[in-house]
């Protein structure tokens, strides 16, 4: 087991999921409720990482973080180091690759809230923030959990983008999925097998948790009679 690779995988998955949560809430809520003329355009952009080959995504991301590109030069100016082949660069690419997983479940949860419930919160004297905290978030939390778990699991399994953007630097950007690939290439099937089993276990457990939670919620709602 390559513990360092596992640590980087978990760190990447954790930060991707955590950082995307507020964005998921903001974007999901806006896309569910607000009248946005550019909605089809924005939705398509968000779904793009789902259908694009990770190599294409990685290619454009590498272009945008090169020292000549605005993002790359800004980063260099701020931190005096390159984004390419760094953990931060990997994290940034991972954030983009996971946009559909972070936004879609939350958007779905927000659009399930009856508009009269939102109106009622305002009429009851809650301002927009209080309404978000006291009414909306407690109602969309299954969507948030879904977004978090899907993003986490998907990031653990990400291969193409990681390889394109992060390279394979031990201790910096070498994740578990890349370590598995390396071990298989070197015919160390046992080492690859252990790591593969671990990823399989984590992924299955996450999905199981998600299904079990949504089953619980469905079950509760059907109590209503």
């Amino acid at each position, binding site marked *: 087991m390559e513990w360092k690779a596992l640590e980087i995988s978990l760190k990447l998955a954790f930060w991707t999921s955590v950082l995307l949560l507020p964005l998921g809430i903001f974007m999901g809520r806006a896309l569910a409720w607000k009248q946005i003329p550019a909605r089809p355009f924005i939705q398509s952009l968000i779904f793009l990482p789902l259908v694009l080959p990770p190599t294409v995504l990685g290619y454009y991301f590498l272009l945008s973080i090169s020292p000549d590109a605005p993002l790359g030069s800004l980063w260099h100016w701020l931190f005096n180091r390159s984004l390419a082949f760094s953990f931060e660069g990997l994290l940034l690419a991972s954030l983009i690759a996971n946009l559909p997983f972070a936004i879609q479940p939350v958007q779905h949860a927000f659009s399930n809230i009856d508009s*009269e419930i939102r109106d009622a919160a305002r009429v009851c004297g809650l301002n927009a923030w209080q309404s978000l905290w006291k009414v909306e978030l407690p109602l969309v939390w299954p969507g948030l959990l879904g977004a978090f778990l899907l993003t986490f699991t998907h990031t653990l399994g990400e291969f193409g983008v990681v390889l394109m953007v992060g390279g394979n630097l031990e201790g910096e950007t070498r994740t578990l999925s890349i370590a598995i690939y390396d071990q298989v290439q070197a015919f160390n099937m046992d080492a690859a097998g252990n790591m593969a089993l671990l990823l399989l276990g984590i992924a299955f457990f996450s999905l199981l948790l998600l299904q079990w939670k949504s089953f619980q919620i469905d079950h509760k709602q059907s109590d209503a009679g």
Partner: protein
Amino acid sequence: MTEIQTKAGLRIRLRGTGDIPLDVDLQCHPGELVALVGPSGSGKTTLLRALAGLYQQVDGSILNNGECWFDSSRGISLKPETRHVGMVFQSYALFPHLSARQNLLLALRRIPAANRTLVADQWLQRVNLSGLENRRPRQLSGGQRQRVALARALAPHPRLLLLDEPFSAVDQVTRVKLRRELVVLRQSIDIPTLLVTHDLDEALQLADRICVLHHGKQLQVATPDELMSHPATPVVARLLGMQNIFSAQVISRDDELLTLDWSGISLKIQSKEPFNPGDTLSWMAPPQSILLQRPDRPVPGDSENPVAGTISELVRLGPHASLRITPQHAPELPIGFYVPHHYVERQSLKVGMPVTLSLKTKAMHIFHSAIL
């Protein structure tokens, strides 16, 4: 022209600027209940939402107890959370993740924290929900949910109460019970109340005044009695489900007695409306103005405005029968009304039978406006 304007109560002047038409100029006094009636899509709910500050595409002004909530000419528009409105939504809109008590507590955030639970429980007791404080909305029946919604709207002492079809989602038996409870509750409330309903009976039972809306436009505001006896226009009468609305020409006028030409026969109708010979007007024969006679069983005495015709339709509807009479002189203008079913049996009424209607001079209605 000067206008007497009392500061108390709600004063609404609104015009829609968006896709939804709205044209309302309405007053609602403290303690008064004004029902907004009209077919679906007539702008009733939109008007309530505009009053609560939830719908913004309007021009005009909203004043409540002298406080300006909205004035498009001065750029004033209070946010919904600062208007202190109590609103019962059509779906009740209880917060599903909170218990009945917590639903009230969330609306009671303006009063000191120490009193909130006490006030919430007192209100739940007032709407007969003691013992159900900790139930979630999904564990309550439709009627109980409605009561929680009403308590949540009233507990924070709102300055305006808005009820959006509050009885539409419950069964008939519960509806009657809830209506009675609302009437009892209202006796202790001295704020303006607006009730949206598409149920005319509900409006007639509960409202002090009724405002008829059609395509967002306010057509008539009147007490239930006034509205039912003197609908302002044929459109209002039709919206209220009235039938037998026709047009006629004035032949002569003798003080308050008008002689009309109705498609060839002459009718005498008593009216104070200022019509003169030659004018075209609209008139209506309400049910209480129609008397049915079988020609072979004449009633002694003179019959007023006799109209000869035949029964063209006879349909039994429970204890009543719906009758349609085709007049001889104008078969395209049938007159419809209801009679008790036992009357149909006693008189052996049948489709095709010739009959005479007598239209009572004093009971017929002439519309102020001639537009059909």
